[in-house]
């Protein structure tokens, strides 16, 4: 079973590293929980991994935040920021975030594997069982992270 108290600081650090290094954006914790209606406006990247435990990390961001990153990081004009570009950026951020997170939890002499990021829209599960759900602010944009343990290892 995932221990939230142990995992949250590592998730926060990994998320901060990913956003600060990729987009020069600061990450902060927030107590505000996104409602179902708010979450419907989000886009999600899902990424499976096999490390000290097998699991999935889902990263929920808004299109506004992705467009801002595309503009700042890739110097793209609004006309160049297509949905595919935003999906690619979301996948890259989640890939980097999960890589950073797993590097923190996996011992140096062990390896881990990661799947490929998959984009999900409007098919979010509202079932909170067995998930760690965390909310953060990236600058002024709220994001959500879900960590799900799928297979526990001995």
């Amino acid at each position, binding site marked *: 079973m995932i221990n939230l108290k142990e995992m949250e600081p590592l998730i926060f650090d990994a998320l901060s590293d*990913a956003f600060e290094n990729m987009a020069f954006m600061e990450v902060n914790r927030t107590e505000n929980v996104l409602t179902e209606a708010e979450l419907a406006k989000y886009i999600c990247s899902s990424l499976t991994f096999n490390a000290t435990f097998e699991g999935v990390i889902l990263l929920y961001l808004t299109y506004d935040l992705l467009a801002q990153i595309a503009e700042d990081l890739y110097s793209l004009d609004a006309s160049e920021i297509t949905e595919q570009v935003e999906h690619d950026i979301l996948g890259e951020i989640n890939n980097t975030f999960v890589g950073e997170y797993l590097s923190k939890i996996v011992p140096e002499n062990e390896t881990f594997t990661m799947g490929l990021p998959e984009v999900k829209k409007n098919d979010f599960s509202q079932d909170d069982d067995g998930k760690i759900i965390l909310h953060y602010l990236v600058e002024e944009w709220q994001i959500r992270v879900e960590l799900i343990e799928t297979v526990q290892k001995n």
Partner: protein
Amino acid sequence: MINVVIVDDSGTARMMIRKCIEITAPVEVDVREASSGDEALKVMKEKVPDLLISDLNMPGMDGEKLLKFTKASLKLNEVPVIIISSAGNPKRKEELLSFGAETVLQKPITPPVLGEAINDLITNGVLNV
């Protein structure tokens, strides 16, 4: 001029790597792109590049297989390879270096990081300009 092949399944990631190279490379760069390991092999066999930069985690032929194919090929085995990976733990990096990668860089890639890696390859005589 250096001839570089960039491999990543994400078009946006390829664009980012291309920009990083164009900003930091000490000489003019001719960049060709491939969206998979299979496509990269075709592109490299058409014209052998001076440098291969590949993402690790890709569908189909991933960066590790591409690295192994490249190093096992009589035509391509001298091409220096930079692998870009999200999985940055030391054991994995050691493995990739043992398979023949010259450098393993952890995401996110920034111009200074990629520029330093390319300059190191030039300084060490691995990449001839």
